């Protein structure tokens, strides 16, 4: 099929049912014949009656028509339809002829059909194409003060290796993988394209092992924010979904009460105080007013520790921001459950372990607290527990 102005005669007729406006064709009763000569031409017949349009191809004679449009070649027909060639020019040059009422056609057709437009060509989206234009999406304002070198190792069809360097407010791309990358992301090229065009969820791809991250995970997660979002040229324009952003910040002040008050007062003297159940003799730490097993009030207090051993611990690698301060903690860090000396077996005490001691932390490790120089009766009075050998 011969193409002119990026489309074909057949496409103009094929889209007619979709472009038809029934509400504008009340009372219209016409049969229009089309005869287009040359390569890519043909004959079509349009029947509009009872607010419905029917289009059919015709072999041989068009038969009786209210009006007939004859074009010498496909280029003229398409050009006139797209208004790239003036209809009057084509008519006067004899490249187009109308049998019947020209004025009627010129007013009626635009009224009952939406103007034909050339369908957008699908642009092929490739990983290489997206990456080669990465500089255009770079946001120097978001990357102020950032120095980061990261790489993509894209496998499979359309793959390749790329290093992206962000420094001094600029972004450069080069082929190949540098040795000093902060992080390298390995995936199939198709996965990268899917993530950029929004058909693949990045987090899910990562979780399921389709994307492998070697190096600084936080850096990998941050790369997105230095760039404008990639816009898929083939994506249909969607309705914009608006969301409202709010930050809630609350100042709080909690009364400690007499029992926890005792605990905090103990900290000031570098003492870890437990309350004691008068029935089962459990040492409750942190101290509580009631033994939850015996349902009786505790009255005595006893000092535990300071040394103890670890029963279980969480060694945290994932740097989730502290929701209370908004700060991202240094990883790894560990919170351990500790059986303090003098404690009954039901009750462990939890605290953080000294960072330098993490490599040797295990269940059973013996530990002791390191105190702040001047305890004030707060959580910060204990700096950490350290491992003693």
């Amino acid at each position, binding site marked *: 099929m011969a193409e002119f102005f990026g489309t074909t005669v057949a496409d103009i007729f094929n889209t007619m049912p979709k472009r038809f406006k029934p509400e504008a064709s009340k009372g219209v009763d016409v049969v229009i014949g089309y005869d287009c000569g040359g390569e890519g031409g043909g004959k079509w017949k349009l029947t509009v009656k009872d607010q419905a349009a029917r289009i059919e191809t015709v072999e041989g004679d068009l038969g009786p028509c209210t009006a007939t449009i004859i074009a010498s070649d496909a280029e003229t027909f398409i050009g006139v339809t797209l208004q790239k060639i003036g209809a009057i020019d084509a008519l006067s040059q004899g490249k187009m002829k109308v049998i019947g009422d020209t004025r009627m056609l010129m007013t009626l057709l635009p009224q009952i059909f939406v103007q034909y437009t050339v369908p957008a060509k699908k642009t092929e989206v490739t990983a290489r194409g997206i990456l080669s234009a990465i500089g255009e999406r770079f946001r120097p304002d978001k990357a102020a003060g950032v120095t980061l070198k990261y790489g993509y190792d894209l496998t499979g069809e359309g793959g390749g290796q790329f290093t992206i360097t962000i420094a001094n407010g600029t972004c450069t791309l080069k082929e190949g993988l540098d040795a000093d990358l902060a992080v390298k992301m390995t995936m199939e090229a198709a996965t990268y394209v899917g993530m950029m065009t929004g058909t693949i969820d990045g987090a899910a791809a990562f979780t399921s092992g389709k994307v492998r991250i070697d190096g600084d995970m936080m850096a990998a997660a941050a790369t997105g924010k230095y760039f404008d979002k990639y816009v898929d040229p083939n994506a249909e324009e969607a309705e914009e979904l608006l969301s409202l952003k709010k930050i809630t910040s609350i100042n709080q002040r909690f009364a400690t009460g007499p029992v*926890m008050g005792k605990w905090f007062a103990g900290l000031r003297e570098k003492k870890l105080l437990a309350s004691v159940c008068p029935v089962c003799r459990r040492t409750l730490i942190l101290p509580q007013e009631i033994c939850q097993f015996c349902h009786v009030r505790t009255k005595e207090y006893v000092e535990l520790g300071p040394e103890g051993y670890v029963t279980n611990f*969480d060694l945290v690698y994932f740097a989730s921001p502290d929701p209370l301060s908004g700060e991202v903690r240094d990883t790894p860090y560990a919170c351990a459950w500790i059986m303090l000396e003098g404690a009954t077996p039901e009750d462990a005490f939890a605290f953080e372990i000294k960072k330098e001691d993490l490599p040797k932390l295990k269940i059973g490790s013996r530990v002791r607290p390191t105190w702040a120089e001047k305890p004030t009766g707060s*959580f910060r009075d204990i700096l950490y527990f350290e491992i003693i050998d």
Partner: protein
Amino acid sequence: MKKHDKNRNVAIIGIGQTTLSSHKEDQNQVEMVNEAVKNALADANMTLDDIDCIVHGNMELFEMQFQPDMWHALDCGSYGKEEFRITTGGTVGATLVCASDSLVASGQYDTVLCLGFEKLQEGNTTGGITNMADPLWFRNLQTGALTSSTANEMIKEFGKERVLRAAMKYRIMIDKHAMLNERAHRRLGLEYDQLENLMETSPQLVGDLRLIHMCSQSDGACAMVLTNEDRVKKGTAKPPVWIRDHETSHRGENMSNLYGAQKPKSTHRDCAEKLFMRNGITNPLEYFDVFEMYDPSAFWGLDWLREFLLLKDDEVLKLMEANEFDLDGKLPVNPSGGVIASNPIGATAMLRPAEAALQIRGDAGGHQIKKEVRHALASGFGGTLWTVMLMLEKELNW
């Protein structure tokens, strides 16, 4: 032991869910709630006129919207009706069903609609969970719900290689189930031949707990219509699913006791023992045809199966290794994909009995178990140490 006799029997006759996904930006909270309510009413072939009371719940700290039931009054159908609002943390969805069951059984209301929802993407889940910790002290130590303590304990008991393999196998099995459930949020397409690779490459979050093991954060809502035996006898649009019994266990232990040198009995085992003893269930593994369990991570999934099913020693690992929790296994676990696949927290624990009821009805679609499901078990869990279990039956014959 206290009896749980009911004044009258109660059945689930309508189940509505939204799809469960990471972002529901095309709906606001009330619209999402409304979708679940409409789906539940349509499933029951009822209108709001048939509903006497609404029971509404979620975890309001997550979206920081205090009394969301007031915002939802029109969309959840509570306007002009009696309403209860319940918040019991992660287990709220299950508590909503238990409360609705009790409200109908008592005779106070004939037909009740319960609703659980969460839009986790609209708030800060880790912040919400951290703020549940005691503000005087433990809030300073807690960051969300990530922990490897269960993995540590299992490894100590059964050896590292065996436990890590079983946990990853559990994770892949769950994903295979989720792939059959088109409503599920995370459907990754994992295969068993990825097991060793994932054990090595999935990023470590805490100790041996890796990203792949952990549950998702989802948006979604679930609603159910419960009614009494007399109403059921007049005919229902879908087969009724009977709520035989439920039990809640939230004893006095705190985290300090959980990690002491002498561990208390878990609330799961305590809850299961009470529920099964009261109902004469001596072998839960044999009795139940499906178990929809609240499984926030692969390690918890495995460890908690042992507690809920009252298994001994390494029985749970043996069952896992022999594929007995698959859809065609001895006791299919979480055909829906469970909590690891989809976790809109306020709805999560209601989705467990909802999915179990769909299995009994034979209405679960792609993830329907092939053999007949007559007896179903569902569980909910929330922080800290709060367990709910429900027993559902196809026939009113116990």
